[in-house]
């Protein structure tokens, strides 16, 4: 039976179709989840896609965090459900306190759409197992509020416990502290990533296929369970 991965659509989600396409390209079946759903339908992994949920009103991700589907997702993630938040999804996971830190305005105060180099520093998560340690990959970064920040104690803890999943390599595009591009929770099942792996699954429409590993990794993690 094909593995099923949920992709949540909030009002204002934009990269949901792209995340679903990446899931399918990796060989799994994407299952749409609606923000108003109160049921994760037994899915074994969930992606919170990029976009401007609720228009980024109040703060990016601040309103989405209270959507009914999050009422189901938050306890499930705490119990070990693999969850990947991409861009706005990362912001939502931080607002939901599933991940430490926060995302703030880019250093240049402008939206950036750019292909960036990213180094995968933790291959122990269900989303990154198919990469090599310190492998450098090309992904699309596209965000206005992508600068990762955290207090010094949190940063020290993230570093010492290996919770930085990815860092920008070859230049910091947005002022993220420590060049951080992605982090995970303590347990490793919840990963937030600012660049978009779903936009790097086909050389025809993106910078290559480097992003596919996030989706094949989770497929393998689900098969191993």
């Amino acid at each position, binding site marked *: 039976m094909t593995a099923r991965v949920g992709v949540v659509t909030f009002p204002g989600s*934009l990269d949901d179709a792209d995340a679903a396409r990446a899931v399918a390209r990796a060989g799994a079946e994407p299952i749409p989840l609606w923000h108003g759903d109160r049921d994760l339908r037994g899915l074994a992994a969930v992606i919170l896609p990029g976009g401007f949920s609720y228009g980024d009103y109040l703060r990016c991700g601040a309103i989405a965090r209270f959507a009914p589907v999050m009422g189901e997702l938050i306890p499930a993630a705490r119990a070990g459900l693999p969850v990947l938040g991409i861009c706005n999804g990362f912001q939502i996971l931080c607002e939901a306190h599933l991940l430490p830190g926060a995302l703030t305005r880019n250093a240049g105060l402008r939206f950036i759409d750019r292909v960036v180099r990213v180094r995968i520093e933790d291959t122990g998560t269900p989303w990154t197992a198919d990469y090599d340690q310190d492998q450098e990959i090309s992904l699309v970064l596209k965000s206005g509020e992508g600068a990762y920040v955290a207090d010094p104690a949190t940063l020290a803890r993230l570093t010492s416990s290996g919770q930085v999943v990815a860092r920008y390599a070859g230049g910091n595009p947005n002022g993220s502290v420590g060049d951080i591009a992605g982090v995970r929770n303590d347990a490793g099942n919840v990963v937030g990533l600012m660049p978009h792996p779903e936009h790097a699954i086909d050389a*025809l429409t993106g910078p290559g296929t480097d992003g596919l590993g996030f989706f094949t990794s989770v497929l393998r993690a689900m098969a191993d369970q």
Partner: protein
Amino acid sequence: MSGAADTVTRAAATPGQPQPYAELGLTTAEYERIGELLGRRPTDAELAIYSVMWSEHCSYKSSKVHLRRFAESAPPSAALLAGIGQNAGVVDIGQGYAVTFKVESHNHPSYVEPFQGAATGVGGIVRDILAMGARPIAVMDSLRFGPADAPDTRRVLPGVVSGISFYGNCLGLPNIGGELAFDPCYRGNPLVNALCVGVMRHQDLKLAAARGTGNKVILFGSRTGPDGIGGASVLASATFGGSDSAKRPSVQVGDPFMEKLLIECCLELYAADLVTGIQDLGAAGVACATTELAAGGGTGMDVDLDVVPLRDPALGPAEILMSESQERMMAVVEPGNVGAFLEICARWGVLATVIGEVTGSGRLRMTWRGEQVVDIPPASAADEGPVYQRPIQRPAGQDALQADDPAALPRPAGGPELRGTLLSLLASPGLADKSWVTEQYDRHVRGNTVLATPEDAGVIRIDEQTGLGVALATDGNGRFGLLDPYAGAQLALAEAYRNVAATGAVPLAVTNCLNFGSPEDPGVMWQFSEAVRGLADGCAALGVPVTGGNVSFYNQTDEAPIHPTPVVGVLGVHADVTTRVPIGLRTEGAPIVLLGRTAAEFGGSAWAQVTHGHCGGRPPEVDLAAERALAVVLTQAAAEGLLEAAHDLSEGGLAVALAECCLDQGIGCQVTLPGDLFTQLFSESAARAVVAVRPGSERALAALAARHGVPASELGVVAGDSLVVTGRTGQASTGQASTGQASFDIPVVELAAAHRGTLPSLFE
């Protein structure tokens, strides 16, 4: 007397009551014509409707007699499913798909308030496309500003770019291309032209027509507020003696989040087949939507203005009608479908209200606070507005302008001078790298962007299984337009057509945005008439129909109008986007071939502009048969996989094109040019492209070019990490004593430094 409505009864009883028609932009003759149409003076609400519907913007009253040429001389095209007069033209692209695309100006709002002006420009054109039944899939922007270093440009440009970025990104539409140009003529008159393209299945086509007596009229989307109704304020204060609601902003404010919900909501409504007619609300708001829907259906409509959801309860009927609040649509729905319609709207959090119904009366009737405030034949406002044959006069200075030939200008001679000329062109704001702008736009969202800026055209995949896709390019050149508006319009068309073909797409249809000065200036009307004639003739010669467009007049401050700037958008089709051809050189040793013929043509060129601040003489010669032949060679070569890169030649000629080909991937080339090196490098002769041939395909390309009569000269090969140019310099006509060998070598990193530094240093 606040709250008392100017009713139909009252209007009939008080024929002599003075009305502020002049403040609303109507002439005395136009006002009297309304009285004749109605058999009485209009009510204030009716006056509001006529004033906006008969405005230049909505009625095309000065341009109509000229625009008829587009339909009259349109080439026969089986591809056109809906044409001029609809919200946007619709073109069959095969496999059951149709696309709709249109470009529209938001020049004046963007000057007054750059951020919101540009943002709502994107929002407006996206709703036009949505109203045709299509899913919007991409946007583009053609931007023109005053001198790049002028203080006002530093106010306007960053605001316009961030407004487009804010709205388009939040909407989830990839921005795949456009233009950025600078010229002193746009100081105080920036041009902000936004294009949107959408896709649908043939059977999903929707038209703006209210049909079926008893069908309900539903207003949905944002509430109606006091946005963009400066004109109506005149009415309000004149009628009601002033009230708090008279102080209101006249620039609309955009909410892209609501527009995103509106898009998804509409697409779900279409999929459920719940809509019989639909219209977006843009300029002239409810007034425009109700009159056009009723006129389009040849029916009548009763509307209750009391139920229109308002942001400001103090709004009167005239203001409700004229409000340009964004993110609103109007649908005509069968009574049995209203429940399902409202349910889908609720699911998307979109406010929807039944405000009226279709009648068989042939009258548009509206009530407010229980009284009749509007009772008019809808076509009289929508279709039967004034039409003007404005005086036309070729400007007195036109001959002198054309006589001011750039042949007399000093030219660079040896290798070092030619090298310096190329670097200065690459660093000039109009030709410099646009990343500072385009990086602010999301070009990746939806995952179907195959090519985007700085490629020749944006290419979007439509069907993932078959690879069917479309290519779009917009082009315009105000300097060519000034020197010869007929040729200038054709050159803009030819460039966009060539750009689309350079990616391998077959050009199919045309849209346009005609940016001009005041139509009350006979010189401007001559420019306009010439440009329309040129574009219509050009489209006929190239076999691509105009599917729709937009006219923006009054782009002038004080005496000086802008250069005539027709911006032309061409849409092409890729049967399979995997065969698309990018501009970047990739493979060492691949032969570089120039397609087309080069003559010494420098009138209105980038070289004359950048080096000498000169704009005179004649623009490059137009040869549409050559353009057509070149496009056939480019598209066939792409389909047969003969090319690894192709780039059209336009501003800055072969020199700038080769530099851009090198810059894309950081790979150089070595070329030897025949004839005078300066002419070969910087002439802007049309109907040319430079290509890098896939090794082994040289003979096939040469045969293909020969078959279509397109000159093909092999210039050199892709090699190393420098642009290396060799040739002869000097020619008898410039008075130089001798001719000789000349060459120069520019490392790609040096090209990049010149190309990439300009915009950040100006705008950061």
